[in-house]
């Protein structure tokens, strides 16, 4: 989307983050926690949006990458490694794993990356659960200390929002650069992109691996937020949930992940009275949204704001 190249989108994201920071000052601890969780989910969803929305590949491994980031931080922090370093380590491991898996999977077309990443999430879950010497097994790792001076709920919220702001800027820069242009090109028409010298395989792999690295960053924020990691949050269900966030917000739109993560955090709170039926309703709503407005909530809002509809440009391109 060219929308990415307008500075307005970055301003929108930073404005939302600032608003969240201000809002946190007046909220009860649980509200502050939800805002921090929103930031954590948003970072992971931004990463997945690179893979899905820009490179056009379905990844079901984002939960595994978040898990890797969370465990890396949970394991390294007690050894006195500073938080910044554990965050980068989680991102680096996820990036490397992304390259390692994506390289063979992207040699073949179609849905192969979806299946390879599905396998990775299942395998990572088994490792988290079974390798007790490293991960604490089913019991997990508890008493994860938050890095000073961000030890309070409000303090840590600032750290989460700060990291989200940095990630927002970095991804905005990435998408504005020639790389972002190449990502859009390979999503829209890989054959034509290749004929213009765009190395489709390399760029797809990079988008996937950078998306994975952001999953690692999200996990690094998650572990000290809940102060306890165990395998179950990083199962396949979370990968699916992150995918839903991206498509609900609008895959391929810069602001989509912010909106999708907000819905994922707030909707279960509002629909508490539904108890276990919440997920049934949520899944049904996602399906309806996918059918009625595949461009997601952000696309829907943009359409509503544009007074004069211009038709569907993609449909007219091919005679």
């Amino acid at each position, binding site marked *: 989307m060219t929308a990415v190249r307008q500075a307005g989108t970055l301003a929108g994201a930073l404005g939302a983050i600032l608003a969240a920071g201000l809002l946190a000052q007046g909220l009860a601890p649980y509200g502050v926690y939800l805002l921090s969780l929103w930031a954590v989910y948003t970072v992971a969803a931004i990463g997945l949006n690179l893979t899905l929305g820009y490179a056009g590949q379905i990844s079901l491994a984002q939960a595994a990458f978040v898990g890797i980031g969370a465990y890396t931080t949970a394991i390294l922090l007690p050894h006195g490694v500073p938080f910044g370093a554990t965050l980068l380590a989680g991102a680096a491991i996820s990036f490397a794993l992304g390259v390692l898996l994506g390289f063979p999977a992207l040699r073949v077309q179609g849905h192969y990356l979806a299946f390879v990443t599905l396998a990775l999430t299942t395998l990572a879950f088994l490792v988290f659960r079974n390798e007790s010497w490293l991960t604490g097994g089913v019991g997990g790792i508890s008493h994860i200390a938050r890095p000073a001076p961000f030890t309070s709920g409000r303090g840590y919220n600032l750290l989460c929002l700060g990291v989200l702001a940095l990630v927002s800027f970095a991804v905005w820069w990435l998408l504005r650069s020639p790389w972002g242009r190449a990502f859009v090109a390979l999503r829209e028409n890989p054959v034509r992109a*290749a004929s213009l010298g765009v190395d489709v395989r390399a760029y797809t792999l990079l988008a996937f691996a950078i998306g994975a690295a952001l999953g690692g960053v999200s996990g690094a924020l998650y572990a000290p937020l809940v102060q306890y990691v165990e395998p179950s949050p990083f199962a396949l269900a979370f990968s699916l949930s992150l995918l839903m966030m991206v498509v609900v917000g609008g895959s391929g739109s810069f602001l989509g992940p912010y909106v999708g993560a907000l819905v994922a955090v707030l909707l279960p709170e509002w629909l508490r009275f539904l108890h276990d039926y919440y997920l049934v309703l949520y899944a049904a709503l996602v399906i309806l949204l996918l059918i009625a407005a595949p461009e997601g909530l952000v696309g829907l809002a943009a359409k509503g704001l544009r007074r004069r509809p211009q038709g569907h440009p993609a449909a007219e*391109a091919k005679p």
Partner: protein
Amino acid sequence: MSPVLEARELHRHFGGVKAVNGISFAVAEREILGVIGPNGSGKSTLFNCLLGQIAPSSGRVLLDGVDVTGLRPSELNRRGVSRTFQLLQVFPQLSVRENLILAGQEHVGGRIRRLFGRPDAGLGGAADHMMELFRLTHLSALLAGSLSYGQQKLLDAAMAFMAGPRLVLLDEPAGGVNLTLLGAFRERLRAMNAEAGATFVVIEHNMDFVMSLCSRVICIAEGRIIADGLPGEVRENPEVIEAYLGH
């Protein structure tokens, strides 16, 4: 001096069908070579083999004397081979200017430099110049998908020249272009050939367009070259007439 493009004994078989059955030719620098032939004669398969879209069953493709057989399309492009497609292929969600910058960006600097460098990869000026040449300047900021067919066609062609190509392969450039635009389009291509020094290979059905644009024409039928010469000669060649009428 070796020719810009040379095909040596190219074969491409699909099962028992010999779509390209031993084609050899050379294109000299600055030449505009037209490739004609009835439908199903093997033109498109030949083009796909030359462009790395599919691998030839046997035979070689040489670019400036260097063997480039089997290279991927993106690698060929970075070696100076540019192309347009039979069907329009612009990026509808990018602006006209962005389309042009995209067409050139993979040819400047390294990938890492491009990430941290200027968003337009230093190609803003070149894109503006190209828009002037192709009369697209007033459309610069519009999404390519919102342009008229003729405007998209111009953009499509302009993109092929952004990287200063050594060789341009045009697949039915006149298809779907109205008569008014066609003349201007031909003049633009001629000018690009003269000014930029690019060599052209053109597949085309529109005989008048081929005859007035090309300096040399080859005719393909049943996977083989049946005529090769000046446009006038090929047009009068009885074998060529037979090939067209026979179908």
